[in-house]
Every structure is written in structure tokens, then in C-alpha cells.
């Protein structure tokens, strides 16, 4: 049945997101969508921008105080590095701890950090995944930047670049898109856009009546495709679908264009009633190709 859900998503959106199951502490499996790398990159860019601006503001504040005025360039740079370190670590830790695993960037894109085993997200896990970011990216980046100022041997650059490349590519190399920090902390990043509960499409009374035989042709997959089509109406497509259904179930009358939507809704209602009833009797039907009464999936 979950598979029917996923197959419809795949049909409609062209590709299925990577899905994974978490088991909640109550023992109920919850399907989660693994976040795309693109989404995570956008979230990270937003967060990084905020951190850079925050660091710059603090730095300027510090330098307008009399304390900083006599400092040399070397001291200034040290203070800058110090501030950047504090700001970015405090930023990620603070938000992931207080915003239930989301930084402003992640919230903007609709991402959350969750525990991979379905437990509560522990502070230690948040600390671990963010501390690791230091070695994944910031330290080699800092070294690259500071080395470029001085003389720098070629292989040092290559080694640092390879290091960063390796860690950046790591999420591509595993199913759950984990970066090194996620591996150490036992976390993963999921996409969690908000879904709305729409009105039920089921009709209150039956204008069209279908026979058991007519309702025995389709399965859950086709039913849910029909549901999605009814929820985003496209007259031409609905006409085509209605014609196909009429042919398949050998519907005697032809439909005028004003009848199409009521007919499809009535068919949806009857079909769903029939499928739900047989599912209750242990005869779930996944799609039109499965034998009636054969086990679903």
C-alpha cells in the first residue's frame, strides 16, 4: 500500500525521492524523504552567508572599541578567525538544538536533522555532527586561504583540495546522503515540507451505479492516480481518462463534457468503497495487473 503511494509519486513527479523508514519509539514505521543534495547545499549557503555577515558585524564592532585600535594586522586576523569559529559553531549548535534540528537555512528549504534510528535527537548528536564540519570543510578551507598568502607547495594544495573533495562527495556515495558528521553523530537530514489535509473526494450519494464486475478491474494504484487527477483538474486529461475508463468497464452511455467530473468522482467513490472493503477482508489489490484477491504489493 505504501508502495502504491510511492508509485503514484513517481508517476506524477517523474522520480521518487529517496525514502527511508524510521521507527518511532511507539513502534510505528514512519516514511521519511531523504533530503536532496541540492536542497542541503542551498540551506548551507544561506547559513554560511548569515555566519559571514554575523562575523563581519562582530569584527567591526570590536574594532570600533578602543581595545582593538592598537592591534596589528596579525592580531586582527587572529581575532577574525576566533570570531568566525565562535559564530559558526554557536550558530549551528544553537539553532539545531532550539529549532528541533533546523537552522534558518534548513527551515527555509524545509529540512530537518533527525536521529537515524528514530530516537530523540540528542544534544550530543547535534554537537558531534557540527563539530565534524570543522574538519570536513572549514579547516582545510582556512588552510588553503592562509597558505595561498604565503608560499605554498603544489602538493599541499592538491592534498587539501582532495581532502575537501572527498568529504564533499561523501554524501553522494551512500544511500542516506550522509556526510561524515552525520555518520559520527547517527543523524540524517530529511526533507519535511508541510502537507495539507484536503477535502475527501468521496461523494455523499451515488448518481452512477457500478457493478461488482466493473469495479473489479482496477487496483489501489489506479485509484490513487485518479484521485490525484481529480485534485488537479485538467479538462482534456480528465476527458481522456474518462473515455479510457468507460472503454475498460464497458460503460454503455457516452458522457457529455459536463458529466465527466461527476462521473469520475462517482467512479472514484465506488471504486474506493469496493477496494477498501476487499482490503478489509484481506484481499487488497495493488493494481490492475494483480489478480483479484492476490496479496497486495
Amino acid at each position, binding site marked *: 500500500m505504501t508502495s502504491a503511494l510511492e508509485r503514484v509519486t513517481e508517476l506524477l513527479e517523474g522520480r521518487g525521492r529517496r525514502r527511508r523508514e524510521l521507527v518511532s519509539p511507539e513502534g510505528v514505521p514512519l516514511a521519511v524523504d531523504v533530503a536532496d543534495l541540492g536542497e542541503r547545499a542551498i540551506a548551507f549557503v544561506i547559513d554560511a552567508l548569515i555566519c559571514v555577515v554575523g562575523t563581519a558585524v562582530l569584527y567591526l564592532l570590536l574594532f570600533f572599541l578602543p581595545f582593538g585600535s592598537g592591534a596589528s594586522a*596579525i592580531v586582527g586576523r587572529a581575532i577574525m578567525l576566533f570570531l568566525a569559529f565562535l559564530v559558526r559553531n554557536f550558530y549551528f549548535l544553537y539553532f539545531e538544538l532550539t529549532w528541533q534540528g533546523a537552522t534558518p537555512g534548513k527551515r527555509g528549504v524545509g529540512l530537518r536533522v533527525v536521529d537515524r534510528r528514530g530516537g530523540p535527537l540528542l544534544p550530543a548528536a547535534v554537537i558531534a555532527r557540527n563539530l565534524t564540519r570543522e574538519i570536513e570543510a572549514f579547516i582545510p578551507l582556512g588552510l588553503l586561504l592562509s597558505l595561498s598568502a604565503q608560499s605554498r607547495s603544489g602538493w599541499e594544495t592538491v592534498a587539501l583540495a582532495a581532502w575537501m573533495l572527498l568529504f564533499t562527495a561523501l554524501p553522494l556515495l551512500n544511500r542516506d546522503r550522509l556526510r561524515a558528521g552525520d555518520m559520527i553523530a547517527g543523524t540524517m537530514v530529511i526533507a519535511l515540507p508541510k502537507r495539507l489535509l484536503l477535502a475527501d473526494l468521496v461523494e455523499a450519494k451515488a448518481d452512477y451505479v457500478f*457493478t461488482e464486475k466493473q469495479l473489479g478491474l482496477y487496483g489501489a494504484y489506479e485509484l490513487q492516480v485518479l484521485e490525484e487527477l481529480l485534485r488537479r483538474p485538467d479538462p482534456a486529461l480528465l476527458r481522456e481518462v474518462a473515455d479510457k475508463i468507460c472503454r475498460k468497464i464497458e460503460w454503455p452511455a457516452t458522457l457529455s463534457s459536463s458529466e465527466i467530473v461527476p462521473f469520475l468522482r462517482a467512479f472514484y467513490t465506488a471504486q474506493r468503497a469496493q477496494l477498501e472493503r476487499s482490503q478489509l477482508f484481506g484481499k487488497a489489490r495493488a493494481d490492475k495487473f494483480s489478480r483479484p484477491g492476490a496479496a497486495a504489493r
Partner: protein
Amino acid sequence: MTEAAACPAPAIALKSTEFRRGREEGWRELETLVERVRTRGIRSLSAEELQRLPSLYRAAISSLSVARSIALDRNLLLYLENLTLRAFLAVYGPRVAILRGTLDFFREGFPAAVRTVRWHFLIAFAAVLVGVLAGFWLTLSDEFWFTAMVPSGLADDRGPASTRESLLQEEIFAPWPGAARAFGTMASFLFSHNTVVGILVFSLGIAAGVPTLLLLVYQGVIYGAFIALHYNRGIAVDFLGWTAIHGVTEFAAIMLCGAAGLAIAEQALFPGRYGRMENVALGGRSAAQIAIGAMLLFFVAAVLEGGFRQLVASTEARFAIGAVTGVLWLLYFGRAGRESAA
């Protein structure tokens, strides 16, 4: 409509529709609560709402289980999956006041985590010791080794060409450079060399611990080379005092990071009853606590180094401070947080 056959009776009553009608109100209420928690934090809920949240969550999660077995309404199923997941994150989200959490961490969590890796710590200690001895013997016989082994940024003009006087005046008993400069030295040291080494040592544990051990040995080698350089000029004791003031804390921090890295390596190499990845995740959290705590030690070391080292200009006093810090750390890691457990 010629075939007015038996099939679904004209008055339609779907189980899933009935089911939805009875529970929808609770879902909507949960949805608003979850949304409030997400945007304004758990504190925005009143005491009564706070009590409602878990029971609404449990109701929703049982709705999901039922819906999965009786309903074929795609929108309903997706909505319930989404709602329970979001409610799950609201109910089981991290629940810490930052200040309180930090205090608890340093009072109990950190020393307790350190106590679990005491054997790893001993291995890290042994690695550093081996490095010190190697660096010392090599440099003792031929000071060329000093330039070969110590990176120029750390050597800072010190090397085979240094004389006893220059070392004493510019290094060991150099005058205190003033607050701004001292802070700069502290900050740059904290965030250029030591912390980098600490974090590297920790996180390279995931590569089976070999790079961790090598880096630890190398830290020892550098220190040993410095000792030999000063030994050859007859000021080894002064140099040891000069480094003891902060070195005890600093080496402790590096070795703690090393111990944490080795603990991760152990989890990765010998996964035991869990999968390798799962096991790394289990051990990684407590190891990361140690690494975070080690940052505190680095900070203390940098304060001692930037602030006190040049102010305290007597070797005896420096040794005394170093010894006191060592004893304090031992007491802290040995005793802190134990009373509450007993």
C-alpha cells in the same frame, strides 16, 4: 444506468470516511500545536497545551496505523504520515536550555565521558611519549633533525642557529607583550595550530585510528626536538618550566582528542553486535563530547599561555603552576560527577 445491480448501495458509507470524520478535529488541533512549536518554540505552549501534545501525537500515530490498513485515500495517508512525523519531531526534539545544558555537561557529562576512554587515553599518552623520546634522541645528536621535523611556523626562528642567550631572552624570559598582543597570540594559537591538531586527531579516528596515532607521535616528536635543542644549550629545565605552565593542559587536550579518536576507531574496527555504521554513531556521540570538552582545555591552555606564561618569570613558579593544573585536571576527571551517580 441500465445495470442497477447490487453492488455498492446508493447510500455510501465508506469506513475510511467515517474514520476521518471522527478524528479530523484532533489532527487539526495537533497540526496547529506542532506548527506553533516549530515557529515559536515549545515555550509558546500553555501548560494545558503542553499536556495535550503527547496525547494528540499518540492519537495521530494510531490513526496512521489504522489508516494504513483501512484507507486508500492518498491525500489522507500522506497527510497523516507528514503530520505524525512533524509531531514526532516536536515531541522528541532536543529539549535543553543552552545554559543549563552546558553546565550539566561540564559538571557530569564531560568527565564521565572521559572516564570511559581512560585506556584510549593511556594509548594516546604512550604515543606522545614515544614521539618525545624519538624527537629528543634524534635532535640531541644532530640538530639538523630539528629543522627537518619542526614546521617553520612553529619553530619561529628558533633552530640550530639559536644561541643560549637568544633563547633565554626572546623566548623563555621574554617580557610580557601587553593585553592586545597577548590576546592575539592566544587566539591565533588556539585557532591555528592546537585546535586544528585536536580536531584532526579526533576525527581521523574514523580512518581506523592510524592517522590519529601518527599525529600524536608527531606532536611528541616536535616537543622532543625542542627539548633537545634547549638541552644542548643547557637550559632544558627552564624550557620545561616555560612549557609546563600551559603544556600540561595542552597535551592533556590533544591526548583527550586522540583518545576520543581512538574510541571511534575501536567502534569502527570492532563493531560487535551492531552494524559498523550504527556502532560508529553510538560511540561517536560520546567521543564528540570529549572533543568538545577538550576545546575547553585548549582554551584554558591558551589563556595560561597568552596571559600568564610571560608574567610568571620564574621557572619554579612555572613548574608549580603546571603541576597544580595537572592535579586539578586529574581530580576533575577522576571525581567530578561521581557523587550524583553513587
